[in-house]
């Protein structure tokens, strides 16, 4: 079976003053459908840049990305927005829920930006996603009324509401207490049963250990790619 994502010779170069900084310096990787992967590395290793490029928030300077059989390395901004709303979900360290919206509205947000979006259907899908993460008792609360663990579960619901192919979780447990760390990581890990590829981006080895495959990065290169 072909990989969900195949990247070859990926480079990203930033210009900082007079020098070029190579955030990614030639990366080749494959991600399979339904894989639970951790990308591990210190800050500046290029892991965030890789996540942003694979999450259609940024474009590479060089190289190729084949996503679900299509070359996507150089898409225009609107097309990348389409991929973000249809194929990708994000879970952030800081939850990034919108404080003015209710829980269910926050979860429905990605569907709002699809064509032919229907408010009723969106809310129904959001309720189903909240059911999936065990948060259906908090539909009309504001994010501010929830605990950190609850907020992150709402954020996971927002990431899965659009039935994405891949979810990127950027230090998802960084702001959580010990009890909630496992709960959120287990929740993320359980998503692979639905065929979703889950990518944990972290500098924390103990978090990365939860994944089935750990990619270690350093200085813009893949240092180690280990399946446990």
């Amino acid at each position, binding site marked *: 079976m072909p990989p969900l994502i195949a990247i070859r010779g990926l480079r990203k170069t930033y210009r900082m003053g007079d020098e070029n900084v190579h955030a990614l310096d030639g990366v080749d990787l494959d991600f399979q459908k339904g894989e639970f992967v951790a990308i591990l590395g210190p800050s500046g290793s290029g892991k965030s840049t890789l996540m942003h490029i694979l999450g259609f928030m*940024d474009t590479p300077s060089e190289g190729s990305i084949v996503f679900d059989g299509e070359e996507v390395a150089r898409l225009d901004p609107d097309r990348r927005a389409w991929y*973000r*709303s249809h194929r990708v979900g994000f879970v952030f360290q800081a939850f*990034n*829920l919108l404080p003015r919206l209710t829980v269910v509205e926050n979860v429905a947000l990605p569907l709002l930006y699809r064509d032919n979006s229907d408010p009723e259907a969106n809310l129904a899908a959001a309720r189903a996603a909240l059911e999936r993460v065990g948060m259906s008792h908090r539909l009309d609360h504001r994010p501010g009324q929830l605990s950190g663990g609850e907020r992150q579960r709402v954020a996971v619901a927002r990431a899965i509401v659009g039935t994405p192919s891949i979810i990127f979780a950027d230090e998802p447990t960084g702001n959580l207490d010990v009890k909630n760390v496992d709960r959120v990581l287990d929740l993320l890990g359980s998503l692979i049963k639905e065929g979703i590829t889950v990518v944990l981006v972290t500098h924390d080895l103990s978090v990365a250990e939860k994944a089935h495959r750990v990619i270690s990065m350093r200085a813009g290169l893949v240092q180690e790619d280990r399946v446990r």
Partner: protein
Amino acid sequence: MRLFDRVRPAVINGLRELQANKVRSLLSMSGIILGVASLVAMVTVVQGMVGNFRQFVDAMGGIEKITVLREQLPKEQEHLAELSEGLTMRDVDRIRRTVPLVRNISPEARVGYEKIVYEDRETNTYVTGVTADYLPVAKRWVEPEQGRFVSDLDVHNMTDVIVLGSAVVPELFAPNVDPVGQVVKVRGRRFTVIGVLNNIEGTGMQIRSANSRSSGGAWRYRNSGAFIPVSTALTKYNGNDRLSGLGLRIADPEQLRDAVEQAERTMLAAHKGLRDFSISTNEQTLEDFRKTEAAFKLSLGGVAGISLFVGGIGIMNVMLASINERIREIGVRKAVGARGSDLFLQFLAEAAVVSVVGGLIGLLVSVGIVSLMNFILMQALPTGAVATLDWVIMGEGLAFSVVIGLIAGVYPALRAAKLDPIEALRHE
């Protein structure tokens, strides 16, 4: 349809933002509120003035009236005074024959400020000798149930009939007495009342004229007076054939200048070159008024324009501040799939919502301003009808505020649309 699907959530979102930041939104709206309020109030008041003035000029015979008055000879012709025969009925015939642009000629012979007596009541007013042409020239009429005016036959037969101004009637007659058919005395001579002139009422705001001696102002002056056949006035009172003036009504206001020129030439030739008359029109009055109106529009419009401009800047300022506070939100929305155009629409809608709500409040304020002005004017002028708010003007005021809001929202919305999602998400 698709655009509407995108606009609707943006507008709902805008209303929620407004609700969440009530004080800030109200402050950012203040310019729009003042702008719309002053714009609508200004246009309403100026329109009231314009409408009123049109009526005023109309009451003076309108723009198509030319007035010929008897004058003293100028200094250089004083030695020829014996040759001057003044204005006479012969001038009426000459103008009728030689100035085709003139449709009606109304000769007027002033008898004087006279005492009119009915039984034990009396009043003083101007008595003027006229012909039937007085009505079309002065743009007046006699309501059918109020009798009739002086006719050609009355002039021909030198009858002793009199038509009263509507303001004279209550001075002479008890309310239950029909003035038509009654006999009044003017300097001892008995006149039969044959009619009462129509009552001129001002609507819109009152223009005070120099003639106003009491409340009611110019209109009251126009409603006083008494009219008798010109032949009666000349032979039975004045004892000569000299008229005090001629009123000419031309067919087409566009030909006013030509008509004045022709009349002047005819008169000058007939008077052997003597300048014992003057010719004037309402054009100058109207021109003066147009200048005043333009000055009002310019200054008040300037105030309204500046406050709307400032209002637009206020909205832009608040939108920029709001975007600065919500950079993270913009990042999140982009990360979950919003395009630049979605965010552009969202923030443009927010600016539009602020300006529409501000515009609506401004309309409410303008209602208050106009009511207050009306109240003050009512106190000053009991007869004064007042400026009324017009839905069209209010609609235009609101539309203007929306346009300002949209223009003011474009730049902030563009900034939001162009934010880089990665940078935005990193923003603290």
